[in-house]
Each structure stands twice: as C-alpha cells, then as structure tokens.
C-alpha cells in the first residue's frame, strides 16, 4: 500500500498554562488518502478544529505540538519553520473556515485576494491572475463574475462569501483542503448549495478533504470515512456508513441516538447524561467512562487505544479480544 497523502501519527497538542499543562489532543492518529473526504465530528472542545489547525501549522500560541508527527506525502511538516511552512500552506493544503467574513480581508477586493494567492503560489502574471480569478468566481457560481471580481467582501451575502472562500482555498490547486465547519454559519438552503459545490469541485480536481463539523448530517452526505473525537482523542474511526448506521463505540452510539431526524419521529431522544470533561479534569482510563452506559472496571483504570471493533476501529475495551478483559 502506498503512503497516504496525509498521515498523522500519535499527535499530541499541549497548552502550557500557569496552572499546569493542558493536553488538548492526545495520541491522535489517522490518514487521508488522495481524493478522499475524511469527516471529523465531535462536540465543542473535542479537539476537531485543533487537529486541523495543527496540520496546517496555525496553532494559536501557547498551544504547541508536543509529540507525534504529521506527514504530507511522506514528508514531515510538523517541525517546519514558519517560512518553510508558508509555501505548503495554501499551495499544498488549503483551508476553509467557518466564518467567511473573518477569512476574507475586508480591505481588498475579492479579485485581488484570489489573484494574489495565485501569483504567490503559481507565479502567474497580473493579467493572467485576474483572468484566473474571474474564472474561479464563475466556477464557484458567482453570477456576473467579471463584474463582481472588483467587489469587496462586504458586498457579498454569507453564502456568496463562502463561495469566494472556497475559490480561495482551491485556486492554488492544493492536494488537501481542511474545511473547518464550512457551513455552520449558513442557512440550510445555502448550506446544501455550499456542500454540493465543495463536493463537486473536490471530486473534479481530486482534492482530498478533511471536513470538520459537528453536523452528522453533513458528514453522512459528504464523507467517505469519519473520525469521531471525544476529549482530544479519536473514539471511533471507520467508513461513514458503518459509523452512522452501526457504530461500535458507546459514545458514537449515544451521539447518533441523540440526533433528532427530519424523516422520522421518535418520542424520546437517547440522551448521554453529563457533558464532556474539561481539559483539566479528564478522567483516568477511558475519558468517556463516567458517562458510559456499558462501563466496567478496566475502563476506569486503563486507557483504550483504537482497536478493531466490528466494521470500524474504536477506542473501547468492549472490543478487546482477550476474554479476560470482559470478565474483569
């Protein structure tokens, strides 16, 4: 098997604070193949956005990568200096963030922002870059692109802005795009348009996507594989169909049951009592054990790593092959 496009090995991100070091990501490992869409889901504070930020080298200080490796096409990128990272960011890895208004520079026209990106990364001339910028605006479905290229971000609606951000992320033709909650700020009808656009463009260009969101519906429709995060670790990872329809980890099972569905009605939603632990109070053993309906002694003491669990891989002692573990 060839090396995946992106490989994250045992990534650990820490935030040193006056009252001790908080471990925000711990032992996170996964890979993304070329052209694949990996969904990353979890609740607030699970570490999904942080994983994206670590990959693209945009961790907010004092956050720092304290362990593990990030490899892009087999080459380590987690230990690069900022000036070495710059040609990778944008050119190799594009980014789409939640709020299109803060992603775009309000003082430059959208055309200039697109053109600048392509001039820096692809070395286009002024005229070519402008032509390409108009082309990209057309590609992402902005009407009257030749005219709108000279408009400022505030002249666009939220959905149109997010289209511009997608154009910006894809215009240097990166191999991987990290999309962090790309539709969370948008209304459902616009969300559907943006997801369809992102899906179409990345498929046409063979771009791999790491799609970070808390919306399981978006993941179910878009992703090939999905990683479920809890308290800074991956709780379960596997093909999207298996994780959604037949999850193995008790957290994923609870999470799926707690989502109300539009196309059917249940009298009562499954609820997971309690809430995710704070970073300074992560329980020993499995981080989910105080909320887990199937907890047993081993969970409280020993931390599970990802292991084969039916169709997926789950960090849960229920799937430890030793019979002794279950008896304990």
């Amino acid at each position, binding site marked *: 098997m060839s090396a995946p496009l992106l490989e994250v090995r045992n990534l650990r991100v820490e935030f040193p604070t006056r009252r001790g070091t908080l471990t925000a990501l711990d032992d996170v490992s996964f890979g993304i193949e070329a052209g694949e869409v990996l969904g990353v889901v979890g609740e607030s504070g699970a570490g999904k956005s942080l994983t994206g930020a670590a990959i693209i080298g945009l961790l907010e200080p004092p956050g720092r990568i304290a362990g593990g490796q990030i490899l892009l096409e087999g080459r380590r990128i987690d230990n690069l200096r900022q000036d070495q990272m710059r040609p990778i960011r944008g050119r190799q890895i594009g980014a789409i963030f939640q709020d299109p208004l803060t992603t775009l520079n309000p003082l430059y026209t959208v055309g200039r922002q697109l053109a600048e990106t392509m001039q820096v990364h692809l070395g286009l001339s002024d005229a070519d870059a402008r032509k390409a910028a108009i082309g990209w605006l057309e590609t992402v479905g902005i009407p009257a692109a030749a005219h709108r290229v000279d408009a400022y971000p505030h002249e666009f609606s939220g959905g149109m802005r997010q289209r511009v951000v997608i154009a910006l992320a894809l215009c240097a033709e990166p191999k991987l795009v990290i999309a962090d909650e790309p539709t969370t700020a948008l209304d*459902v009808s616009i*969300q559907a348009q943006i997801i369809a656009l992102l899906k179409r463009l990345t498929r046409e260009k063979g771009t791999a996507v790491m799609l970070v969101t808390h919306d*399981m519906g978006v993941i179910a*429709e878009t992703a090939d594989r999905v990683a479920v995060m809890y308290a800074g670790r991956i709780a379960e990872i596997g093909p999207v169909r298996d994780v959604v329809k037949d999850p193995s980890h008790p957290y994923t099972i609870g999470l799926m049951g707690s989502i*109300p*569905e539009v196309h059917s009605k249940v009298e009562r939603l499954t609820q997971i009592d309690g809430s995710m632990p704070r970073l300074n109070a992560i329980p020993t053993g499995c981080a989910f054990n105080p909320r887990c309906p199937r907890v047993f002694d081993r969970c409280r003491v020993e931390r599970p790593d990802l292991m084969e669990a039916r169709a997926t891989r789950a960090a849960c002692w229920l799937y430890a092959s030793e019979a002794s573990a279950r008896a304990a």
Partner: protein
Amino acid sequence: MPLDAADGPPVLQADGICRYFDVSRPWLQRTIAREPRRTLRAVDGISFSIPRGTTLSLVGESGCGKSTVARVSVGLYPPSAGDVRFEGQPLSSARAQPELRRRMYMIFQDPYASLNPRWRVRDIVAEPIRAFGLLKGDKEIAERVGALLRQVGLAPADGEKFPHEFSGGQRQRISIARALSSEPDFLVCDEPTSALDVSVQAQILNLMKDLQRRLSLTFLFISHNLAVVRHMSDQLGVMYLGRIVEIGPAETIFRRPLHPYTRMLLEAIPDLAMTGKGRTPVAGEVPSPIDPPSGCPFHPRCPLANDRCRVERPDPLAADGALVACHAVQEGRG
C-alpha cells in the same frame, strides 16, 4: 400530545400581526440624498393559535421574522398591526396586568448572554418570584428555588454558584428553572438549543417535553432546525420573509409538505439516512426583507412560479389539512 379543544380558548392567538421597523438613514443624510423613508417589514400579517398543552413551532431561515414573532407574542414588541390575545385577553393590556405577564416567559438562545454573570444562580432563579411577589420570606423562596433546580436536573446546592461555573447545557437548565419559577402557562423558546452540542441538545429537548407533559405547558418554539422542530411540535408554521407560507399539524406537513419552500427546506437538510445520496440544492438566496419581491415573496426561487405568482400575493388557503399560501398548490400545479 392530543389537541384538547374542550379546554377553553387557545392559550395564545395571533390575528394578522405585523411588526415594521424603520430602517431609514438619519434625517439629514436622507434629506441630502433625497431618499424616502425605508421600512423593514419583519413580520407582515401572520395568524396562528396555540391550544393549551401543545407546541407550535415556527421555522425559517435567518431574517424570516421568526424571532420577531416570538417577541411580539410575549409583548416585548408591540405589534404594528393586528393583535395577540392570551386566553382571549388582548396582550396590549398586559403591561397593566402583572398577572398576565407572570403567566408567560421566554427562553433565549444564548445561555451565556441571558444569565447575569454577577448574580448567584439562586438569585437568578428567584428573580421572577420576587418581581411578582409570589412568595414572601427568604426561607420559602429558597425552598422553591431548590425544588425548581431539582426539577430541571440540577442540585439545590448549585444555587450558590455563579453562571460561569456551569456548562452551556446546565446554563440552559438554569434558564428553564428561571422561566418556570413564576409558574407560567406559556413559554416562548427562541432557538433554545441552537448554541448546544447535540448530546446536550437531546437532554434539553427531553427535559422540555417532560416538563410540558407534567405541567401542561404551552410552547411557542422557534427554531431553524427542522429535525428539532419535528421532534417537538404539534403544529408547524413555516415562515418566509415575514409571512407564514404553510401552517398545520406538524406530522401532516412533514409527511406531505405542499408549499414549494417547505419542500425545498425539507429537501435541503442533510440527513443521516441519506448516506451517499446526492441532492439537488435549490438555487438562490433569501431576498432582503427591506425590498421584498412583488407578488409571492418566494417566486424568484420557486420552480413552479408563473406570471400570477410574480404579481399577486397568495393568501393562505386550506389544502390537505394545512393552510398553504401558494398559487401553484391552489391551482393544482404543484
């Protein structure tokens, strides 16, 4: 929950309520630029009624006026036209009637902004009790606050803490405890779970349904999330640009949506059941409510629009157990 028609008048009845906002530029600038005054018709003639013990949900995208309806319903905004009646009494007189005000309360979206950070939880929850003079004596009030906190799944000892010591879901529980402290019959919930994570959202929705059953509460539930709405509602109203385009029993509308906008909304929602299935998203965006399209406001995005839709505004008419404001549905073109 059964609709109990024998239970007297509906708890809340809105008749053709409108709410306009003046969004003109300041007088001098307007005069220099020779601009006319500009009005934003946030809510433009909507009617509904909510029987006791049931939930009416209003859904729609940002800017459709659903939160304005919520505020008009509890009297936080006076309507520009039309009227709201609470158990048959006009709400416009509620200012003069503390008893009416006591019986309605609002739960807001952001549990971080709606609780005073400088107050202890016990004082936050006791505020309506003190404001309406429902109980005398600190001991009685403390007991009542403890019972309310238990009712929403917190401990009486949590009353000593400050809001920042709680997570988002727990804060929303505090908001609910405060809303229940004046023993209201009618609660307006404006996106109560939008700021919460799904597993916490499930806890809050379950809690709200339990309390509704136990205390026979009446809810006006505002949300943009159709899945949440389906879970909560007896009746559903779909809003678009300040108007209700379809209203009726929730299950009927979810099973068989008639208005093209309702169909589009239901179609647009990514669903767990649809793994791998592609959808055709509807083109276009919500137009500005300051300058809404002529005729039916949805016509620029509607696949069924014809000349009549561009000119004539459709009125809500009965169709299959619901009220639908659409020429195409009425003409059988849908």
